[in-house]
């Protein structure tokens, strides 16, 4: 039986107490996050190159991480989802499905660029001013994104081009996530129900300008150093 109970205060005080040790091994981070941006002009020449630490994962990314740790069910015998999935991600406690079928969950991620700025909060769920996909005024053309996995690292890559006729300035970047529940509904129709979240949010130390005709690549890298 799994239980959710109060942690004794004396334990909790110690759990939340900052580390006092200054031991290199103990302070080794298990995950490092980076954002890399490379900007090219219309001729393909690199005109800007950035690399900075990603600082701001949201509670939604933490909730996503709870799936491989806590699972999706609240106990071995329960028929309801974990509290984090229902309370934080607002997923259904129990998906209604067609006779004798079942439901499953998967997720995907993508990078979104923006031209605004805002203060970070773990509950932030969108960019301040997202730059939409297209070739019109104020838009960037988003190419298909890719994800690589190498040596315990997950790297999301986005390439954009600017066909808008004017320079576009990028000042914020987010890792967007969509969690899907797949099932057949009561009418026996295949359904994929999406739930959208912001998994990370960062602003660039100084805005990145992409000239008309230029392109840029953006990477968000999460490394599990193991």
């Amino acid at each position, binding site marked *: 039986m*799994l*239980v*959710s109970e109060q942690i004794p205060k004396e334990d909790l005080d110690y759990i939340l107490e900052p*580390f006092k040790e200054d031991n290199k091994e*103990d302070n*080794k*981070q*298990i995950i*490092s996050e980076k954002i890399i941006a490379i900007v090219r002009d219309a001729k*393909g020449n690199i005109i800007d190159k950035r690399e900075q*630490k990603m600082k701001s*994962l*949201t509670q939604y990314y*933490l*909730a*996503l991480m*709870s799936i*491989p*740790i806590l*699972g*999706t*069910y*609240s*106990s*071995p*015998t*329960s*028929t309801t989802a*974990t*509290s*984090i999935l229902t*309370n934080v991600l607002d997923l259904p*406690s*129990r*998906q209604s*499905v067609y006779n004798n*079928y*079942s*439901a*499953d969950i998967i*997720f995907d991620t993508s990078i979104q660029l923006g031209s605004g700025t805002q203060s*970070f909060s*773990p*509950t932030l769920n969108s960019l301040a001013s997202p730059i939409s996909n297209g070739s019109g005024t104020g838009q960037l*053309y988003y*190419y298909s994104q*890719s*994800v690589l996995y190498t040596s*315990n690292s*997950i790297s999301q890559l986005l*390439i954009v081009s600017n066909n808008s006729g004017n320079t576009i300035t990028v000042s914020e970047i987010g890792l967007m996530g969509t969690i*899907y529940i*797949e099932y057949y509904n009561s009418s026996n129709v*295949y359904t994929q129900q999406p739930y959208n979240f912001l998994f*990370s949010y960062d602003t660039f130390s100084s805005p990145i300008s992409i000239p008309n*005709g230029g*392109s840029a690549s953006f990477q968000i*890298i999460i*490394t599990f150093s*193991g």
Partner: protein
Amino acid sequence: MLVGSKVDYDISNLYIPKDVKEDIDYQKSFSATLTIIVRDKDGKVIKKYKQKSHSPTANFIGLMLPLTWYNTTGNSWTFTTTSNTTFTYQPTLKANGYGVAYPNNQNDYNTYIINIIVGSGSSSNPYNAYNLNAPISNGSGTGQLLYSSISTPTSITINGSQAYFIISQSYANQSGGTITISEVGIILNLQTENSISENINTGQVLVWYDALSSPISLSNGQSATIYYTFSVNA
């Protein structure tokens, strides 16, 4: 098309960062902490221990890869169970596509945390670990610890920009001798399937592993509570 060969070069030369510990000005975002509180037979705290938690396993990574990775590479992920058997997983977003089982009103395939398991061994390659090196079994016999039920969070706690959740489990030593804990892991009962309940793959998988920097010894009658704290922006 404006994206040409030079951008292709960027794609094919994706930069993987150096270990972040070399960056002294790094403001961490994600962290995991392992805390152990030891109590005597009367419940009095006699030892507190805490260390950074370092080691998601390959099983964990496979569950954290987004759909795009599976779609663009065409690869599947191989999970290794605690019994050293394997099964593959390739999620797809389509009719009869595969994913991790989710609660529903017809057929449930419970995917849930089983234990924070403790052991008396040590693994030199946590990423490839599929079980603890020397698991301590549940019981009151020689070399055993009595495992309590695992405690799971009801939500994520937010404190300013920080967000975290804590899982915990307690272990009592009624074996008659001293037991030393030197490794800790998290075991998930994983079930992957498609939405018409075909080809269900099931296994108990180790998703997290830590060797303790300093092993914890429990004398007969003592107990320990292990807390894993997963946090962002701490």
